[in-house]
């Protein structure tokens, strides 16, 4: 990557993070919202790995692995919650879950 530099990597990471944010904020399907969160976590991993390469230290790689562990835990619990929501109302459309709305 000595020909590309740090900036394109971080730019790609920022674009992917923004796409994930758009998905989280605009989609109504709970499953696709969870997928968008995974996309955002991945974008952060890309920034970690890019900085690790730039600074020549592998600490960023260790952090990326920890982020993956947390993402796996989040996916497991999140999908269990989606399953519960579906059992409750037979839909995963987030517009239907307004119990905590004031």
């Amino acid at each position: 990557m000595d020909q590309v530099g740090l900036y394109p990597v971080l730019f790609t990471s920022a674009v992917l993070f923004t796409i994930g944010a758009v998905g989280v904020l605009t989609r109504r399907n709970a499953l696709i919202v969870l997928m968008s969160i995974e996309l955002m976590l991945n974008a952060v991993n890309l920034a970690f790995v890019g900085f690790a390469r730039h600074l020549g230290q592998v600490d960023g790689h260790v952090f990326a692995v920890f982020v993956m562990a947390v993402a796996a835990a989040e996916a497991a619990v999140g999908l269990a919650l989606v399953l519960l929501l579906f059992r409750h109302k037979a839909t995963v459309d987030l517009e239907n879950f307004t119990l905590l709305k004031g």
Partner: protein
Amino acid sequence: MLQAVIFYTLAIAAVIAGVVVVTRRNPISAALALVVAFFFQAALYVLLDAHFVAVTQVLVYAGAIMVLFVFVIMLLNLRGDQGAALPQPSARAQVGLAVAGLVGTGLVTSLDALRRVDMGPAAEGFGTIQQVGGLIFDGTYLLPFEVASVLLTVAMVGAVVLAKREI
């Protein structure tokens, strides 16, 4: 030159796959596009000399997490229209787009200072499993590693408790 061409191809492909994920009606199509996005990101990690992270990405994300997603989508057996509607140009979607656009602009402008930063050639053995494993197990990240294993156990128990009808 070749490296730059490969990088930009992979980066653009990853971004396109990401856009496909958030615009699909059918959750299965979105999940498959997400697998593609994960694979392109794994290729980007290889370009960045992060060999261990690239392998973990394919194993954990493209393997385990995506199987979990597809499994749950199949289990729910959604009918065509349920929660699958694309964002109408409703007020909520517009606010969401505006907020995400602000976040994106903020991120990109904050990167401006790093525009001229170059990467030197990687050191010998950079990013290999030996180096990453050494950093984790020589004590620097040993406690976080153990905490991560406890977190995964808790998440596993929590998922079972939540999803099981009667314990």
